[in-house]
C-alpha cells in the first residue's frame, strides 16, 4: 500500500468508526502499588454481569455434574435434621422452646448449610479459578462473591422444604416474617466477610483449605443449631453474638417460628461483628489482590 492510499483508507475507517474519539475515554493508570487501596465499588458495579454469569456457571456446573443435582440441597440439611432430632431431640432431650424439635433444628440448618457451603466455596474459589486470574483482568472480588451468591439457589430449595414442614406442623409465621430477608443478608455478609479473608489467605497459604474444614465444624457447635441460645446464660448472651451466625439463627427462629423475644443485644453485636469482618476483609482482599496473579 502506498502512503496516500493508506491515508485515505484510514480516514474512511474513522468516519465509520463507532468509537467516539472525542468522548472521554476511561483512563487507567498503572503504577507500583503502595499499601492500602480503595475498594472501588464503582468498578464492581460495572462488572455486575460477570458476577451474575460466574454465579450462574457455578450453579449450572454443580447440577450438571451430580446425579441427584438439586436434591443435594435438600438431602444435606434434611438428614442432618433427622440425626439431630434423634440424638439431641429425643435421646438427649435438649429443649426446643415450644416447637417440635425437627422444625426447630431444620429452621437453623437451612441458613447454616447455606453459610457453611458458601464459606467453603468462597475460600477455595480463588485457588480454583487460578487459570482465569492469570489470563484476564477483572475485579478479583467477583470470584468469592459469585461463590457466595451461587449458594443462594441451594438455600432457596432447602427453604422450600422448610415451608413444607411448617405447613405440616401447622406453624404460622408471625408478622416478624418481613425481617427474614435481613437475616439472609446477614448470613450472606458473614459468609462473604470470612470468605474474602480466607480466599485471599488461601492464595498465599494453601493450609487454609484444611483450616476451613475445621473452622466450619467448630462453628457448627458454637452456633445454636442443635440447642436453643437460651442455654447460654443471659449475661453471656451479648458476647455470644460475636458469632454472627448465632444472630442469624436466632433471627430465623424468631421471624419464622415466632419463638421467644426478638434477639436484641445479641443481634446488635452480631451485626457490628459482621460489619467489622466484612470491611476489614474487603480491604485486606484489595491489598492482596494485585499479587494474586504472581503467586497463585
Amino acid at each position: 500500500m502506498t502512503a496516500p492510499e493508506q491515508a485515505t483508507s484510514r480516514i474512511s475507517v474513522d468516519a465509520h468508526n463507532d468509537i467516539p474519539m472525542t468522548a472521554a475515554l476511561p483512563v487507567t493508570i498503572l503504577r507500583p502499588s503502595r499499601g492500602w487501596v480503595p475498594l472501588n465499588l464503582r468498578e464492581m458495579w460495572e462488572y455486575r454481569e460477570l458476577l451474575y454469569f460466574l454465579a450462574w456457571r457455578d450453579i449450572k456446573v454443580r447440577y450438571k455434574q451430580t446425579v441427584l443435582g438439586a436434591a443435594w440441597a435438600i438431602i444435606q440439611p434434611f438428614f442432618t435434621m433427622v440425626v439431630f432430632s434423634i440424638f439431641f431431640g429425643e435421646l438427649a432431650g435438649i429443649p426446643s422452646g415450644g416447637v417440635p424439635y425437627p422444625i426447630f433444628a431444620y429452621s437453623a440448618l437451612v441458613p447454616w448449610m447455606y453459610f457453611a457451603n458458601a464459606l467453603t466455596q468462597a475460600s477455595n474459589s480463588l485457588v480454583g479459578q487460578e487459570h482465569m486470574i492469570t489470563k484476564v483482568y477483572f475485579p478479583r472480588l467477583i470470584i468469592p462473591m459469585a461463590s457466595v451468591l451461587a449458594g443462594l439457589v441451594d438455600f432457596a430449595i432447602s427453604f422450600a422444604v422448610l415451608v413444607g414442614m411448617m405447613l405440616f406442623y401447622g406453624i404460622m409465621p408471625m408478622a416478624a416474617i418481613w425481617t427474614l430477608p435481613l437475616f439472609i443478608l446477614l448470613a450472606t455478609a458473614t459468609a462473604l466477610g470470612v470468605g474474602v479473608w480466607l480466599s485471599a489467605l488461601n492464595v498465599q497459604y494453601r493450609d487454609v483449605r484444611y483450616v476451613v474444614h475445621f473452622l466450619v465444624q467448630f462453628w457448627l457447635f458454637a452456633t445454636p443449631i442443635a440447642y436453643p441460645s437460651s442455654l447460654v446464660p443471659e449475661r453471656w448472651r451479648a458476647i455470644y453474638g460475636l458469632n454472627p451466625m448465632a444472630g442469624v439463627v436466632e433471627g430465623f427462629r424468631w421471624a419464622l417460628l415466632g419463638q421467644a423475644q426478638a434477639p436484641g443485644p445479641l443481634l446488635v453485636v452480631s451485626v457490628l461483628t459482621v460489619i467489622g469482618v466484612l470491611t476489614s476483609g474487603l480491604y485486606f482482599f484489595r491489598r492482596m489482590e494485585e499479587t494474586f496473579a504472581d503467586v497463585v
Partner: protein
Amino acid sequence: MNDIAVRIEGVGKRYRIGQRESYKTLRDTLTNAVGAPFRRLSSIARRSSADNQRGVARGEYIWALRDISFDLKHGEVLGVIGRNGAGKSTLLKILSRITRPTEGYAEIHGRVGSLLEVGTGFNPELTGRENIYLNGAVLGMKKAEIDRKFDEIVAFAEVEQFIDTPVKRYSSGMYMRLAFAVAAHLEPEILIVDEVLAVGDAEFQKKCLGKMGDVAKGGRTVLFVSHNLLAIENLCEQVIWLKNGEIARQGSPGQVISNYLQSSISPSTERVWSGLATAREKIRLQCVRLRPSDGTASVPITVHTAFALEFEYWNFDPTAYVSVSFCMYNEHDILLFDICPPFDPDWRQKPSPIGLLRSICHIPGDFLNDGLHRVDLIILRNHVPVILEPQALVFHIQDTLEERAGWYGEWPGAIRPMLTWETNLSLSPRPTTGDVV
C-alpha cells in the same frame, strides 16, 4: 495528548526466582517468624544490607522487564517480537492489569480487551451457547452485546449444529474455533493479543489472520505479540523487539524484524556435517558452502557478487541415482525459488558413482535482494527425498550504497535483478526561434 492510547514510562517487573512455583505454607512463615530475630541479629553482626535488600544481594530476584517506554497512538498497531522469555508476556500482563509493574508508570486511555489465550473461563460441562455468554462476560462484554453478536459468533466458529452440546464433546478444532470466535468479536478501544493466531487448522488460521487484519485496519489500537513475523509485518505499523526484558529495537516492522532475524540466526558461508561417512549410511550430507565466483575467499557478499552454492554428499549405494534440490527463502520467509539441476541426459537411468559427490549451483550477481537468505536443502535418492536439511545455510547479502542516491529505505521486492534498460529520445519538440540559443 488526546490521541495517545497507551503511554508507558520506565516500566519494569521484578519476580522473585521461583515465586510462581512455591506457595508458602503457614509453617514456613511461622518458622521464618520464629527464626527472624536470630537472623536479624546475625545479619547486623555481619553488617549485611537491609532486610529487603538481602534477596537482591543474593540474586534471588529476576527482572522480567526493565525500563520499557513507548507511546502508542489511537488506531496504531504495535507488534512485539522476541524470543521466549524475553518479557513479551509480562508486558502484556502488565498492560492487561493482570499484574502490577514493580516500577514505572503507564496510562491507558480507553477500555482494554486482552486475549492472552483463547477460551479463558470455558467450562467443558457447559454447552457452546452457555460458554459464549460466559467467555464473553469474562472478556468484558455486556450481555446485550453478546446477544447482538451471538449469531455472528456461531457462524464464524462454524458450530451451528453443536451449539447446545457441552463443549467437552467438541473436537479440539471446534473448541478452538468457538473460543477464537468469541474473542474475535470483542470490540474494546485497545486490544491486546498474544499468539492467538496459532490455533486450528490452516484454513481457520487464514480466517483468523483475516479477522485480525480487519481489526487492525478498522482503526482499533492493537498490541500484538506473535512469533509469526509475516503476520507482524503485515499487520503492524510499529514493532518492538524485546530482548532479556529490555527494548532491543523499536521502529518500522521491516527494519526491526530483519535486525531480529539477523541476531537470532548467525549467518555463515560454510557448514560441515561432522563425523566420517560410513558405508552403513548409504547417503550422507557432508558440506554446504558458499563461495564467491571471482575466487576471492573474502566476504561480504553484496548484491552484486556472483557466488556459487556447493553441496557435497557421500553416496555408497551402487543402485541409487542421487540428486540435490534446494529452496531459497528471504528473511520474510518468502520462497524465492525452488530449484534442482536441469535434467542431464548423461545420467539418465544410470546410478550415481560411489564416493563424495559435489553439486554446484551458480547464482549470478545482481539477482538477489539484500538481507538474510536461507537455503533449505533436499537430497533425493531415485527422486525420493532422503535427506531434508532446513536452514542448511543461512547467509547475508549486503547492500551497496552506490545506486541508492541518498535514499536509505528498504529496497522492496523479493529479488533485485540488474536488467537492461534503454532510454532514447524518440520525439523532440520543434525548436522555436529565439528559445534555443
